[in-house]
């Protein structure tokens, strides 16, 4: 009998049918990746495996069998016996997934004691044992820490330790690395890989990131709007996809390898490779913004922290400068200083152009109580434009320019999808007729297909209006796709800067090498090679 047997699963929240007629199975010890964009029903399906929809108002139909338990029919006690003991789950946000008030070791021990009749002391010892197994240094001491005293990666390790505590047959991981930096993501994926080999447990990995799936699973199931689109061995589905949706999804994924990029940009009209048109951003182009040895220090005295610590760079007309870095590297602070939202603590920023910004979260960077048209009109009003009909005409023009229907002037942000909202954000930035736009993680919150559309829009606008872009992101592949030059940041400094082809193709700085080695590969074979390379780098 299979470890997981899902037949004709349907889940609906009120009128919304999140999952429709989903069937799949997973053999003991196997690894299945469930891949899809937001709203595809992948997480809802994973929750159904543990019966977590029970008592929430969601309607679940069909049958779910996990480790011999009929989840739909099981009583509460039987279900509790399944949860954690036979099938354990790891969640997306490791900080909020642990109770902030209790020590990490105590929380693991508590879970262990739910399923095993042992003393507190024995449970505590087990907690330390599994924490040690997942690579928490000084496990005895750290087991007494609360979650907030752990780094993001350590928290996720702790959560995995909790999952391991009862030696489950199945591990369900719901976007386990989405909240983590790319190097930490690689460590966690490697850990899951090793644990699976060591314990023989099955893995069901839910992710929006095709690369993460390619790294970790044998089979992959592609989902879209609650339906299974395609299922098969990971190399086959990712290598030779049969379904049009899978093909489109894969085409939208930004690549880090130049060969793959050429395949994506296989458009005969506009050979998209940036390298093909170097004259456009020659060194003689006019300098728009120049930062000279800027520093930004937050806090005072002992707690002072230099978020940006002596950075110099220039942005020239028409070019795209990518800034990559992990969380806390100072890239956003630098972006804010370039725009003028923050005054540098020391150093100088020379601006010879109008600069605008596009923010990461299109939901919170638009006022929910004002229509999108009014939001776009803000910069016009701020510049002193008083003629209402002129403002309206210009805003309609801008909305059309970013691919929105100008008739949507009076609609409110919640009526738009994430990608559309980001288009509104871009329209708002364009309203002030900038010569440089700083995009701070402008596409990070979007699904890959939407992401591809928005980056395409930015590239188009750039060509048409001769804009310069500063593209700040943590995603190395996206940065590579859109940038001419790239600066890699770490701890407030730029560790490496140069043309994308050079930095990605032949990185000089060890940190850049480490970052590039951590990016998940789309090809499982390549992923295995990368994994080996990471081990080597770590050993070195």
């Amino acid at each position, binding site marked *: 009998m299979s470890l997981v047997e899902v037949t004709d699963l349907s889940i609906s929240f009120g009128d919304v049918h999140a999952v429709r007629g989903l069937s799949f199975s997973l053999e003991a010890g196997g690894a299945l990746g469930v891949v899809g964009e937001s709203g595809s029903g992948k997480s809802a399906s994973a929750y159904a495996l543990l019966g977590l929809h029970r008592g929430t108002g969601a309607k679940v139909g069909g049958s779910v069998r996990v480790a011999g338990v009929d989840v739909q029919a099981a009583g509460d006690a039987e279900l*509790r016996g399944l*949860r*954690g003991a036979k099938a354990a789950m790891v969640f997306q946000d490791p900080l909020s997934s642990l*109770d902030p008030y209790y020590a990490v070791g105590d929380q693991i021990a*508590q*879970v262990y004691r739910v399923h095993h009749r042992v003393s507190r002391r024995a449970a505590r010892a087990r907690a330390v044992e599994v924490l040690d197994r997942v690579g928490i240094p000084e496990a005895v001491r750290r087991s007494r820490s609360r979650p907030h005293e752990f780094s993001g990666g350590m928290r996720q390790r702790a959560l995995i330790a909790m999952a391991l505590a009862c030696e489950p047959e199945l591990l369900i991981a719901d976007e386990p690395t989405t909240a983590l930096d790319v190097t930490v993501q690689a460590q966690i994926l490697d850990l899951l890989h090793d644990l699976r080999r060591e314990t023989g447990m099955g893995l069901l990995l839910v992710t929006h990131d095709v690369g993460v799936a390619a790294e970790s699973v044998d089979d992959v199931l592609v989902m879209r709007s609650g339906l299974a689109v395609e299922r098969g061995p990971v190399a086959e589905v990712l290598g030779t996809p049969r379904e049009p949706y899978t093909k489109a999804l894969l085409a939208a994924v930004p690549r880090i390898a130049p060969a793959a990029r050429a395949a994506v940009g296989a458009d005969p009209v506009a050979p998209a490779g940036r390298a093909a048109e170097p004259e456009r951003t020659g060194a003689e182009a006019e300098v728009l913004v120049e930062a000279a040895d800027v520093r930004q220090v937050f806090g005072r005295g002992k707690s002072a922290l230099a978020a940006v610590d002596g950075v110099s760079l220039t942005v020239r007309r028409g070019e795209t400068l990518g800034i990559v870095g992990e969380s806390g590297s100072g890239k956003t602070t630098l972006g804010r200083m370039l725009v003028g939202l923050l005054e540098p603590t020391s150093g100088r920023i020379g601006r010879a152009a109008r600069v605008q910004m596009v923010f990461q979260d299109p939901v919170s960077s638009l006022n929910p109580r004002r229509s999108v048209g009014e939001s776009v009109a803000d910069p016009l009003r701020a510049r002193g434009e008083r003629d209402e009909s002129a403002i309206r005409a210009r805003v309609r023009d801008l909305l059309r320019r970013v691919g929105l229907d100008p008739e949507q002037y009076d609609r409110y942000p919640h009526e738009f999808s994430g990608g559309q909202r980001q288009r509104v954000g871009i329209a708002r930035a364009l309203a002030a007729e900038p010569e440089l736009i700083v995009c701070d993680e402008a596409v990070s919150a979007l699904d890959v297909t939407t992401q591809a559309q928005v980056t395409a829009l930015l590239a188009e606008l750039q060509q048409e209006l001769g804009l310069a872009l500063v593209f700040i992101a943590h995603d190395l592949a996206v940065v590579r796709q859109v940038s001419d030059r790239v600066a890699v940041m770490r701890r407030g400094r730029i560790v490496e800067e140069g043309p994308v082809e050079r930095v990605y193709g032949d990185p000089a700085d060890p940190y850049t090498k480490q970052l590039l080695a951590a990016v998940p590969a789309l090809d499982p074979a390549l992923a295995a090679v990368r994994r080996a390379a990471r081990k080597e780098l770590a050993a070195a």
Partner: protein
Amino acid sequence: MSGFLLRRLGGALFVLLALSVVVYAAFYVAPGDVAQIACGPRCSPAQVAQVSEQLHLGDPVYVQYAHFLQALVTGHDYSTGTGVVHCQAPCLGLSYQSGQQVTQLIVAKLPATASLAVGAFVLWMVLGVGTGVLSVWRRGRVTERILTGITLAGMATPVFVIGLLLIIICVTALRILPFPDYVPFTEDPEQWAWNLLLPWISLALISAAPYARMTRASMLETLAEDHVRTFRAYGVGERTIVGRHALRGALAPVIALGALDVGSMFGGAVLTESLFGIPGVGRELVEAVKQVDLPVVVGLVLVTGFFVVLANAVADILQAMADRRVVLS
């Protein structure tokens, strides 16, 4: 942690200083003949002149205030014409109408009020938090609706209605309790408790209601958090989730509110004290206001403020000890 402690206590001291400035200004810098008001309507011009002298009313305002502060810290000697009265620190001045020192007046009334406040506090916390937990535990069922109804009724009922009802039932009809008559704890602890039982219960019944609501709301919020989902996904039972994780996360605002309430209750529970004839600070305040006994009113307001600020600081420090993230932020 010690840095946090210092900062928190320093902040409390600052609030108290600010409060004393405001209170002093409100009463002594207000228009009208302060000496005449403080002394009372039956004072002779000579007595008024003496009061004016004792309060340093001839000096600039900040000097007056400095004298007031100095008396608080080091004590003060008042000349009465015939001799000298020493008012020990913390000296809140003299009540010219009763001829007593304000500090002694308040200190004499504090034990009764403190007895009432602390007892009622313990009772209403247990009752309020207990009701909140129970209604979360039985959420969506009849029990929850009944509890919510009772809580709402508790919030809407004035203390004297509940107090009178309790007196009628327990004292007049069933005769199981004596009519409350305050007995100091130091005299007879058992009688002290028996006599305070009704005031405690009445005060607790009405005070518990907001705590029940807040505990419930706060716990429901915690139950919606991700970490609760984690423990559900690991087979932890509902009882542990509600009792251990949800309650723990919900207590912070409840404790903060409790500190505020118990602190202000040290300034006197006017209605309850009057109803049950408890010789406490609250009744003293009513009397002082009625007779416009300025020094006593000022003293009482400051003492109440002191207890509120103190209770708040204690609550914050407890909070920080329980949750170290507080110290970091």
